[in-house]
């Protein structure tokens, strides 16, 4: 079958100890049987490794940081689109999603660019700060949580929580505090990086399991693959993991996607307690960095997302391989100073 040529722009090209999903998403798209994909990388910093991976990224453009706002992003995308004729954009960072969600209609109408992301309501509802209400609304167990804006609220936490408890940033980062002193430290550390509020969450022990999934926006689960982390970095990121057979996790995922009519990629972070209860810890509104495992298991979620973005009907995946593993590794690329200079000064490479 002849593959359709399309241009897809992808963010999240970073690969530090908390890697972005961009490169795995690109690898998945490159393996699509339906599309012959030209990849346009969208980067924020000159040292994002994906910029220099010319075998999978055809051209990269720097884009303004999310804090610069929608107008400057739109202006930059306008310029990039005038050269690259982008068909689809896949944003891969939580922090940039607000801008892409609110610009998605404009991008479609004015430039013909398709962005298949959650609705603003879906994005806001699943926010860590709203997780307790979210659990009640969708009848899913979540650890007790509270949003705080000041360290002055820490001493009062003992009325609702017992130590240890989890101190979380609004976008990223989480640390377990075993006493109030540690809670103060983590509050300051995380809020300095990600801003306020800080989320305090009940510490639930058990086995951490994750699901990468994709919803079609009508309540159907197009694909879902559960994974258990096997090797975890000090940032809590999976450095290796294995696909597992857990019908409860799949049922929970389908239920959530049906109830929310989730649109786009997502990652569910769940704790399975020793008693066999499942607690939803977080919903990440985009694919995880380990999404390539789903491809290895027979479900190309990024490929399905592109089809949905282009308005095609996508049949749900019915199965996946159980016991497939991923083992991540780091790789030192040799990069010429000229390339670094080009992306740093001209903003494209």
């Amino acid at each position, binding site marked *: 079958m002849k593959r359709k040529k399309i241009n897809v722009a992808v963010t999240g090209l970073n690969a530090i100890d908390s890697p972005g999903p961009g490169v795995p998403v690109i690898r998945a798209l490159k393996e699509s049987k339906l599309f012959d994909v030209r990849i346009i990388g969208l980067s924020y910093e000159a040292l994002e490794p994906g910029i220099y991976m010319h075998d999978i990224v055809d051209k990269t453009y720097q884009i303004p940081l999310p804090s610069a706002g929608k107008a400057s992003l739109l202006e930059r995308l306008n310029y990039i689109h005038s050269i690259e004729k982008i068909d689809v954009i896949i944003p891969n960072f939580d922090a940039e999603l607000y801008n892409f969600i609110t610009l998605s209609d404009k991008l479609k109408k004015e430039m013909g660019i398709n962005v298949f992301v959650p609705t603003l309501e879906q994005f806001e509802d699943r926010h860590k700060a709203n997780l307790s209400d979210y659990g009640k609304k969708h009848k899913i167990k979540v650890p007790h949580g509270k949003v705080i804006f000041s360290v002055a609220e820490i001493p009062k936490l003992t009325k609702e929580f017992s130590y240890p408890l989890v101190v979380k940033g609004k976008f990223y980062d989480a640390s377990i505090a075993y006493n109030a002193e540690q809670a103060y430290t983590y509050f300051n550390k995380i809020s300095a990086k990600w801003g306020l509020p800080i989320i305090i969450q009940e510490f639930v022990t058990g*086995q951490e399991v994750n699901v990468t999934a994709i919803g079609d926006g009508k309540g159907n689960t197009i694909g879902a693959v559960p*994974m*258990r982390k*096997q090797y975890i970095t000090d940032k809590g990121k999976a450095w290796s*993991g*294995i*696909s*597992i*057979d*857990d019908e409860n996790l799949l049922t929970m995922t389908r239920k959530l996607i049906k109830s929310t009519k989730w649109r786009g990629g997502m990652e569910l972070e769940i704790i399975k307690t020793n008693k066999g209860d499942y607690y939803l810890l977080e919903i990440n509104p985009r694919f995880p960095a380990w999404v390539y495992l789903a491809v290895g298991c027979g479900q190309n979620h990024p490929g399905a997302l592109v089809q949905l973005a282009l308005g095609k009907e996508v049949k749900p995946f019915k199965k996946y391989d*159980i*016991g497939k593993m991923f083992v991540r590794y780091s790789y030192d690329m040799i990069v010429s100073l000229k390339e670094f200079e080009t992306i740093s000064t001209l903003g494209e490479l």
Partner: protein
Amino acid sequence: MKIKKNIALSDSGFVFDPATGDSFTTNPIGLEIIKMLKDGKNSQEIKTTILKKYLTDEATFEKDNYDFLNMLAKHRLTEDHEKEKN
């Protein structure tokens, strides 16, 4: 004691629990015992088979088998609610 039905066993002694992603390795005797448990054999039948096949005494087998079954339970490879009544 019953072993979980979905546990995958390989002849090399690799044991995989697809529900949790946990994997273990066991020696040939351990593998033989797990296979017998999977086939639904009770402890008496397992004991008879092992004592007939290997040069060991009943007391040693009982002690080692007790440890082994506890280890299986500890690693959640057994169906706790279906404890053997024998």
